[in-house]
């Protein structure tokens, strides 16, 4: 009797095992990864933003409190910097998702000190914490830009050069950007342009192009190649009547106090790894210490130099001077856009050589008869007729002339440029600038032998 029921026990065991719902807990929490911390302390910015979020079990974010204490302190002095706590909402349509998202942002308007080190810590109620140390670089006194003297290609308007930095600080990244724009939100997609399609280029005009900077994490590397390409081309700009016509370009330089841990050569999957570029202990993310410096990417030409290995050097610091102004039509003061402004060192009064300086916007040109070695600067007026030339040396006499392109005619042929003043005489007597001086010149063009386009 007993032997006939030998199967009962194992059968019950199997049934009980199979009958129970098995607990399934896929998340494997780790004490080594508590918080996600992202941001940077920028000594050149007026507000610092630090994003702190707990490592969570689901995709969804919540409005719940962080339930942790957050502290930013000056590492050398131990002084705590008060932070404001804000909950930022990102509506679903904004993040291209089906869920509204939230983020906890801590911010301050306190000044960040160049050369200082800061400690940022997030401590959970049970004492576990994530922390990060950010060192802010020393500021730089002078940035030198050398403009290549290689001739520009007619089909691809561009300008190239090298950027030289003092050797004291580390370089995080360099960008060439339109003046006044931000380095972030770079978008290379043509279809992302908010402007209407342009038949001339087969799509919407690109708002701007920002060339990714050459990242240097090597302290000894102080020379960075830079380049700018202007899109859309002038003809497309005119054809499409783009509201943005970038005449002025900047070089944005980000200096870092610690080696920049983000390798621009990483693929997306590499960059997305939790430890890739992270400097957070017991967490993920990155908090850097930086200074952002912006200098103009201007045109510079030295008569007699033409090889790609030769450069026209421009130095930008508090000591360099600036000439700026507005070009207007006579009588009614209407701004003259697309005009070329020429500025050259006038230490050599003798006319020894004829050199045509020609740039692509408006195809304006001027012919100078000056000896080799004379530095010539050019700029272009924007839609308000404004121009600006920076990086000028104090104590050097400069002469100035402008060339205004004639308006296009129906045949598409442009007349030779109207020049002010007639001939090759400068606008006025050579001007000598002082250190740090900003000279404003408001110039009225004078009607010449060719129609100017002024009413």
């Amino acid at each position: 009797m007993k032997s006939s029921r030998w199967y009962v026990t194992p059968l019950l065991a199997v049934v009980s095992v199979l009958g129970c719902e098995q607990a399934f807990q896929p998340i494997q929490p780790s004490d080594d990864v508590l918080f996600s911390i992202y941001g940077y302390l920028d000594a050149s910015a007026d507000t610092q933003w630090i994003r702190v979020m707990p490592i969570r079990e689901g995709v969804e974010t919540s409005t719940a409190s962080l339930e942790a204490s957050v502290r930013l302190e000056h590492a050398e002095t131990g002084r705590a910097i008060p932070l404001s706590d804000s909950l930022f909402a990102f509506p679903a349509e904004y993040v291209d998702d089906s869920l509204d998202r939230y983020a906890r942002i801590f911010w301050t308007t306190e000044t960040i000190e160049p050369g200082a080190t800061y400690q940022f810590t997030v401590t959970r109620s049970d004492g576990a914490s994530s922390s990060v140390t950010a060192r802010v670089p020393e500021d730089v006194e002078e940035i030198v830009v050398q403009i290549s003297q290689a001739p520009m290609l007619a089909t691809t308007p561009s300008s190239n050069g090298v950027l030289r930095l003092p050797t004291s600080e580390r370089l995080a990244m360099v960008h060439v950007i339109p003046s006044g724009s931000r380095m972030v939100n770079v978008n290379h997609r043509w279809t992302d342009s908010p402007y209407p399609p342009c038949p001339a280029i087969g799509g919407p005009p690109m708002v701007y192009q920002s060339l990714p900077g050459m990242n240097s994490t090597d302290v000894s590397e102080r020379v960075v190649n830079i380049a700018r390409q202007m899109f859309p081309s002038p003809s497309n700009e005119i054809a499409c009547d783009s509201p943005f016509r970038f005449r002025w370009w900047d070089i944005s330089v980000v200096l870092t106090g610690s080696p920049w841990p983000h390798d621009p050569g990483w693929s997306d999957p590499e960059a997305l790894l939790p430890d890739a570029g992270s400097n957070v202990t017991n967490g993920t993310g990155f908090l850097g210490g930086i200074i952002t410096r912006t200098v103009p990417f201007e045109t510079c030409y030295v008569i007699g130099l033409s090889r790609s290995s030769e450069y026209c050097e421009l130095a930008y610091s508090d000591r360099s001077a600036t000439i700026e102004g507005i070009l207007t039509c006579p009588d009614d003061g209407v701004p003259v856009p697309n005009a070329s402004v020429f500025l050259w060192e006038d230490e050599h009064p003798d006319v020894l050589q004829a050199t045509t300086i020609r740039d692509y916007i408006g195809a304006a040109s001027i012919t100078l008869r000056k000896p080799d070695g004379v530095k010539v600067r050019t700029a272009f007026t924007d839609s308000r007729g404004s121009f600006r030339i920076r990086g000028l040396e104090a104590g050097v006499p400069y002469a100035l002339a402008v060339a205004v392109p004639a308006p296009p005619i129906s045949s598409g042929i442009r007349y030779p440029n109207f020049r002010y003043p007639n001939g090759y005489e400068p606008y006025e007597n050579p001007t000598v600038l002082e250190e740090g001086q900003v000279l404003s010149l408001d110039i009225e063009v004078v009607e010449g032998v060719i129609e100017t386009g002024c009413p």
Partner: protein
Amino acid sequence: MRFALLLCLVAIASYASANAPLAAQQAAVQGIITNADTGEPLEGASVVLEVAGEQVRSTLADRNGFYQIGNIAPGPYTLRARYLGYAELVESLLLEAGEGLTRSIRLQPDPLLLEGVTVRPRTGAVRRELARQRITPGNIRLVPVPAASRDLAAYLQTLPGVVTTGDRGGQMFIRGGTHTENLALMDGLLIYQPFHILGFFSAFPEELISSVDFYAGGYGARYSGRTSSVLDVRMRDGNRNEYAGTGSVSPFVAEAVLEGPMWPGRMSFLASARRSLLEETSPTILGETQPLAFESQFAKLTLFGAGDSRCSAMFMHTDDRGRLDSEDPVSRVSWENLAFGGRCVDALEGTHRLVDVTFGFSRVRNAAVTRGASEFFADTRRQQLKVSTTDLFRGVPYEFGAFVHLDEWRNDVAELFSRQVQIWPESRWEAGSYVETELRFGDRIRVLPGAVLVLSSKVGVEPRVRASWQPLGRDTEELSASLGLYRQGMAGISDTRDAGSVFVAWSRVPEGGWTSALHAILGWQQSLSPTFSWSFEGYLKRIHDVPVPIWQTTAQFNTDLALANGRVYGADLRLEYNGPRLYGFVGYGYGWTQYEAAQDLFSLWFGEPVQRYHPPHDRRHQINAVASLDVGGFTVGTRWQLGSGLPFTRPIGFDEWFDFRDRLDDVHLRHGTTRVILDKPYQGRLPLIHRLDLSVNRTFQLPFGNMEIQAGAINLYDQTNIFFYDVYTHRRVDQLPFAPYASLRLEAT
């Protein structure tokens, strides 16, 4: 040019072979054995040559019904052809020296021979012949499915070593191989994705199948281009003498089949259409909508020639679409198969050869939208030609063939993250030839050596050998072994990082190479009585250069591939009882699969460039039990399955990522890219699954034919079985719950 050269080589080889002399003035006899009514080839029919009542030689017809006996001394013989359920045919032959006599045989079905006998197929789940498992519609009927017409997919899932990730998705993993390493053929035409989105069903319903050769590995030289398994399905021909039709409906699927003569006795047609109904009925029977739908159409025309040669034209179209996660309103997947072509089989009069020519076009289109983020589209097509011949060389049978195919593919993958659309229409051709012969050493040992020569961007040779030994000189005990090298030049790119992704994009194996696999199989099968048999088979595989997706931490389909090497071993144990009223089968499968992959990311991620992991189809233990009982005019069918948990990658948590590679992301203006922080690949295991399906059916005879009524349920005790865990959204998706059904099938003859 290369194609023309290849055809020339094939022609020369065929000509040379055709004119090879019979050994030493010996004679030979060959032909095709068919069902006299339907023209179906009768695989396994026996042919015996007798002299004065004494058996001198015998053989069995192959899958084409082709039999061949060579090296026969000239003289008078009596030929007997037999097949269970058919009247025996006896014929006198006079074989002359050097003659290759072609004698095709039509056996007449004789229902009287089957009276009082429950005929269960000899080709049970236990029996395998030289790595081949032959599956017939009779086998397929044993496994309950929620439809009146049973399906090959459901039967395959009961076999040890065959792993599915769930009852949806249409993917099948066999002995450690991936679902894109299986070769599925429909009358010789490639079907890329033969299994429907509802896992019970495939493009091969019972109604349309003549027979199936299934190789879980160790297959012969006839098959090439895939490294895991072969599913060679021969669709039946339509009835060439009478019209017939069936129609069936269940809450899951509706089907209609029509067949008949187009030219009585000479030409027949078979047409079928099937459509799923679950999307419409699921709110009633499941209590929730299951957005899963498929449909398929099949047609076949067969022209019967003299000597039972035949030419067929085939067409198949399937269309699957749906959402594997019914609660995800955005993600969806679809795929569409199209295949058409022709096949001719002829035992050439005056020669001692069977020629089999297959040509056609196959295509699959895949599309998917995942998590509202990405849209994928893949279009893959193949044009193929294959010529094979079965022949004798000095009395030794051999099969020789040549093939050429052109693969073309176009994959469009739009990634949200990268803001790129990738389109790369590409093509790849492959040609080759194969030969396989059969050597017999006495009555007990058979050895089938063979090799495949593959020409593509490079040349490869794939040697293979299969052997069997019947130690007691009878087929009730057999030891068998297989060893072979297999290569695959086209890779099915599937994002296996979570099991719920069924989108497949085909492309060449990276770096212009091949995925290769070395199979070694050793098995024993034994019939302990006329009703009870068992078998055991162990296998070992070494896999090289399997394309696997690059790991990353965001939910994106990834077309970047890395190559992995793998080790697979396992064993199957099968027990089968095949009694007059009761059929029972229990199969246990043990499998162990490990990949070793080197990816750049692994160094950054885990500090080591090489990771070893068990891929997501590595089911360690699996038990299947199938039973069918005939009682009181009813047939009760059950299937119970248990599978240990599949590997998955455990997430540590979620956060948002910001990019500081070449810009300064605004952490207060942008939300960032949500990413999952993952543990090492596939370190976790999903819960085990188990389920019981049951059906009861009865057939009634009506004036116009038969009516079958069935009632049943899947997941009878409503077990909550996990289907997949989506690591990127932290969501668990379960398999189907308890679902009752009833079905009706009408058969008009």
